[in-house]
C-alpha cells in the first residue's frame, strides 16, 4: 500500500507531536532535571523534524505516487489476501481459548489456503496434518501450554 511521501511525512509529524504531548505529564528528577521525559522528547522532536523534511521532499519532487483508491480497495486481490491474514490472526486471538489450538489453528490455515486457491480437500488435509504437527512440536516437545478448548479431553 504505497502512499505519497508527503502524506507519510505528515503522519510522522503527527506521531511525533502526539508522543511529545504524552510526555508533558511525566515527572522530573530532583532539582528539576528532565528524567523519564528526556529521551522520548528528543525522539519526538527528531520525528517531527525528519517527518517534516520527508513531506517537503515529497512536495518538492512532485511525488506522483498513485493515490490509494480507497473506494475500490475491496476489489484489490492483494488487499483481500492480506485482510484474510489479519482477520485470521485476530480470530485466532479471540477464539483460541474457546475452540482450542487444534481447531482454531487448522481453521486459520485452511481458510487462508482456500483463499490462495489451494484445492479445498488438499487445503483441509494439509491444514489438519500441519497444525497437528505444530501442536505436537510446541505442546508436547517444547511444553508450550497451547489451549485445548473444546477438545479438552
Amino acid at each position, binding site marked *: *500500500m*504505497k*502512499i505519497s*511521501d508527503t502524506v*507519510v511525512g505528515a503522519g*510522522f509529524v503527527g506521531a511525533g507531536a502526539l*508522543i511529545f504531548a*504524552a*510526555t508533558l505529564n*511525566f*515527572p522530573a*528528577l530532583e532539582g528539576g*532535571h528532565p*528524567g*523519564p521525559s*528526556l*529521551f*522520548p522528547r528528543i*525522539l*519526538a522532536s*527528531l*520525528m517531527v523534524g*525528519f*517527518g517534516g*523534511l*520527508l513531506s517537503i*521532499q515529497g512536495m518538492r519532487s512532485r511525488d506522483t505516487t498513485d493515490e490509494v483508491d480507497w473506494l475500490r480497495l475491496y476489489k484489490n*486481490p*492483494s488487499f483481500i*489476501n*492480506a485482510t*484474510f*491474514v*489479519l482477520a*485470521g*490472526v*485476530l480470530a*485466532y*486471538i479471540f477464539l*483460541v*481459548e474457546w475452540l482450542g*489450538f487444534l481447531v482454531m*489453528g487448522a481453521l*486459520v*490455515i485452511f481458510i*487462508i*489456503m482456500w483463499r*490462495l*486457491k*489451494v484445492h479445498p480437500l488438499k487445503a483441509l488435509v*494439509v*491444514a489438519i496434518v*500441519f*497444525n497437528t504437527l*505444530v501442536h505436537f512440536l*510446541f505442546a508436547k516437545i*517444547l511444553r*508450550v*501450554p*497451547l489451549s485445548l478448548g473444546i477438545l479438552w479431553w
Partner: protein
Amino acid sequence: MIDNLLTALSLLSSWKLMLTIAICSAYGLFVGAVPGLTATMAAALLVPFTFFMEPLAALVAIVTMEAMAIFAGDIPAALVRIPGTPSSAAYTQDSYELTKQGKAELVLGVDVMTSAIGGLMGAVVLMTSAPLLAEVALMFTSFEYFWLAALGLSATVMIASVSPLKAGLALLVGLFFSTVGLDITLGYPRFTFGSTELLNGVDFIPAMIGLFGVSEILRNMASAHLKYPITSVKAEQIFRGVAETLWKYKMNMVRAGAIGTFIGILPGAGADIAAWIAYAAAKRFSKEPGLYGKGAIEPIVDAGTANNACLAGDWVPALVFGIPGDSITAIVIGVLFMKGLRPGPMIFQQQPELIYAVYISFIIANILMVPFGYLAIKVSGTMLKVPRNILMPAILMFCVVGSFAINNSLFDVGLMLAMGILGYFFEANGIPVAPIVLGMVLGPIVEQNFMVSMIKTQWDLTQFFTRPASAILAFLTILTWLAPLIPTLVARMRRNAVSA
C-alpha cells in the same frame, strides 16, 4: 587459548549440537532458496526454538542457519532470476545471464565455493579482532558506551541503502518502542496505557516475528499462487571449472573478503550492502567492466565472497560491545539477553568457551556449506517448486505459536500482528524495517548510559568530550553525521582552488 578451544570443541562435539547444526543447515538452505523468505525472517522464526535451547546451541543454530541461508539465496538468483535473499540481489542479473548461456553449473559452483571461502575469511577476522577489541572495551565506561551506541545509530542511518531520511525515521520508531515500559531513572511507566503487559516494554521477540515474519507473509500474499519457470541443473558438474575461475580471481576474493568483513563490523550494515559495495568495487577495478550485468563471473566471485564474509564481521560489535552489526545480530543480542547473558567484553572473560564455540561454529558451518550446498543445489528444483500458497499459511501459524510461546501470552500474538502490519506498511513505502530492530536494541543502551553519565557528573555534558576514548568516539560519530556533506565540501574547495 588452547584450553578454551579444546573446551569449545568438546562442547560442540555432542550429538545434540551436531543434530542442531544439521537441522539448522537444512532450514537455512530451504529458507534461503525460497524467494520471498529472508535470512532475518528465518532467524526471527528460530528464536522461539532457541528459547528452549542451551545458550551455546542457540548461538550455533543461528550461525549455521544464517551462513547457509545467505548462500542459498544465490540458487534462485541463478535459476529463476529472483534473489532468494536480498544479499544475492547485487549479482542476480549476471548469474541469470550466465545460466541462459548454459553455465548454471559454473555459477552455482562459484557461488558455493566463494560463500564458503568468504565465510571462512570473516571467521578468521572475527577470531583475531574480537578478543583484541574486547580488551580495549574493558576500559570503557558509560560515556564510551553512549558514544558507541550513538555511532551505531548514526551508521545505521548513513549506510542505509535507501533514503537516509527514511532509515532515520524507522530508527526513531525503534527507539520510541524502546522507551515503552518502566523508565530507568524513576521507574515511571511510559506509554503503557495502563497495560501490565507493556510495563516490561515492547517484547523484542514477538516484535521481530511480526516485523520480519508477518510482514513478509503479507508481502508474499500477492504472488503466493504464482509459479516460475525453473532451469534444471546437473549438480554433479557444479565444481567443474570452479578452481580455475577462483584462481583467476584470487585477489578479488581477498579484496571482497576484506570489504565484506569491514562492512559487517560497521553497525547497521548487513550482507546485502556488503554485496553491493563489493560489486561496485569489482566493477571499478575490473578489466572488463562492460560485461557487468550481461553475464560476468567476476562480480559473482566478489559479491558472493563479500556477503558471506560480512556475517562473521557482524558478530564482532555484537559480541564485543553488545552493538548489533545487522538485523540478525540484533536478534542474537535479544537471544543472549533472553538467556541471561549480557554481550560485551565481560563475556570474553566469564564465558570464553561460548565465544570460542561461536568461532568454531562459523568454521564448521562454512566447511559444511560445500557438501550441504551441493545437496541443496541437487534438490533445488524440488525446493523451488514448494507451493507458496501452502507455505505462507504454514509459516503464519509458526509466527503465531512462536510469538505465544515466549510468555504464553495472546497479547504477544496481537503485538506480533501489529508489528507485521507496521513492517508491511513501512516496506511498501520504501522505509526499511531493520533500523526499527536496531533502534529497539540500541535505545536502552543510549538512554541508560546517557542518564547514568549525567547523574554521576551532575549534568556536566563536557565529560562526554574530555575522556580520550570518549572524545575519539564522539569525533567518529560527528564525522558520520557530516559524511554526506564531505563530497560537496571537497567539490566546492576544488572549484575555489581552480578559480583562484
